[in-house]
């Protein structure tokens, strides 16, 4: 049985993203951030985006390109500590920021990917982060309900892919990528290496192809930002 070839032109893949879209972006710091997809998103230029990403990268890098281009209305993230520009825009009211505890952010994204409405947890009970949240009584205690967090698009970065869209990530570049790939209505993956069907061991797949809609090949020579070694 043949399989679909999901290889897509970078421009065509990103052109689907319209004003007001909710866009998840993989990565934790530099590793796993799909810089090429983000760069094309800036070129394409939709406005009023909601961006969901663990962090805001650093000034002049990744998510900061979107912030600087004035394309972001709302940022859902666990921290923006390494990006003073994001902090400034947040304080100036130029962007809304929703802070979510890192593991809760991961789990809310996963819940969407798993087709759940939300989950029940005690994380944040008794702190500022529980304020305004829906609660439920179970086993004689009060728990928080955390709603699933879904998106229109997920932009993810893989080390390797086959043409059907099976993805493999490298080391700590995995992070939020597999969760986001499952949680969005349309998942666009960039991959450093694309192999023929059969080139990835079925036991070694990190994101199964049915979760991936479009596959964008990266040039052999990656943008410099992928190799940043400084902090």
């Amino acid at each position, binding site marked *: *049985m*043949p*399989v*679909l070839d999901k290889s897509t032109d970078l421009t065509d893949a990103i052109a689907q993203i319209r004003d007001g879209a909710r866009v998840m972006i993989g990565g934790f710091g530099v590793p796993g951030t799909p810089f090429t997809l983000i760069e094309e998103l800036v070129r394409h230029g939709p406005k009023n985006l909601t961006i969901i990403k663990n962090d805001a990268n650093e000034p002049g890098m990744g998510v900061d390109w979107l912030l600087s281009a004035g394309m972001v209305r709302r940022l859902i993230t666990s921290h923006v500590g390494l990006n003073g520009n994001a902090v400034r825009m947040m304080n100036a009211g130029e962007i809304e920021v929703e802070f979510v505890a890192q593991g809760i952010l991961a789990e809310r994204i*996963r819940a*969407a*990917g*798993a*087709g*759940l409405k939300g989950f029940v947890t005690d994380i944040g009970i008794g702190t500022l982060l529980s304020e305004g949240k829906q609660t439920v009584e179970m086993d004689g205690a009060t728990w928080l309900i955390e709603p699933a967090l879904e998106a229109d698009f997920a932009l993810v970065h893989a080390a390797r892919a*086959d043409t*059907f869209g*099976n993805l493999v990530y490298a080391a700590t570049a995995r992070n939020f990528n597999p969760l986001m790939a*499952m*949680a969005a*209505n349309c998942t666009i993956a960039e991959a450093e290496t694309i192999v023929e*069907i*059969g080139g*990835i061991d*079925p*036991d070694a*797949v990190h994101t*199964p*192809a*049915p*979760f991936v809609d479009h596959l964008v090949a990266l040039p052999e020579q990656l943008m410099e930002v992928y190799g940043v070694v400084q902090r």
Partner: protein
Amino acid sequence: MSSSAKNRMLARAARDITPGMTVNLGIGLPTQVMAHVAADCPVCLHSENGIAGVGGLTAPGQEDRNLIDAGGGYITCAPGGSFFDSAVSFALVRGGRLDLTLLGAFEVAANGDLANWIIPGKSAAGVGGAIELAQKARRVGVLTTHTDKHGNPKILDRCTLPLTAMGCVNRIYTDMAVCDVEHDGLHLIELAEGVTLAEVRAATGALLIAPDGPIPTF
């Protein structure tokens, strides 16, 4: 059901499996649909025990003891396939990545309700994965004989048995007809060759809305 009627039904269902789909085929009749899908049609077969990319049944003597489908049959993994755990497998189902599932039925109703897991008075052996397939696949097709072995309709106005899922069925394929569940009721879409509208109406326990003009056959 004659073997030619059965084959026509399977082939008709197979025509709704289109290129690029991720599909889960239930145990029994639905599994047999795959044999009628064109060999060059790119389809990804999911089985809920943890594989996307079922190749087919394994030739006797070639079985891999670690590789079965949800029905317990020894299978092969197609090129481009992947393995995953049971949580990811049902994430794929509930998360909307399953384009189509074809299931069997004890009863199916004009409102799309499906009953296929328990008959009161008989002991149920469990629910398996059918509930989530029925409730969450983007499209749900039911494959069934139009009537039971006593000649009673299996397509009813409302199910009498406990439901597997409410309002989940989009299309019903039988040895007599193809019907679609719409908001305004059950629509007859096609007749099996040699079957008349009157015969189908007589064998159906629900109001059947027929098209005005000639009815296509399959």
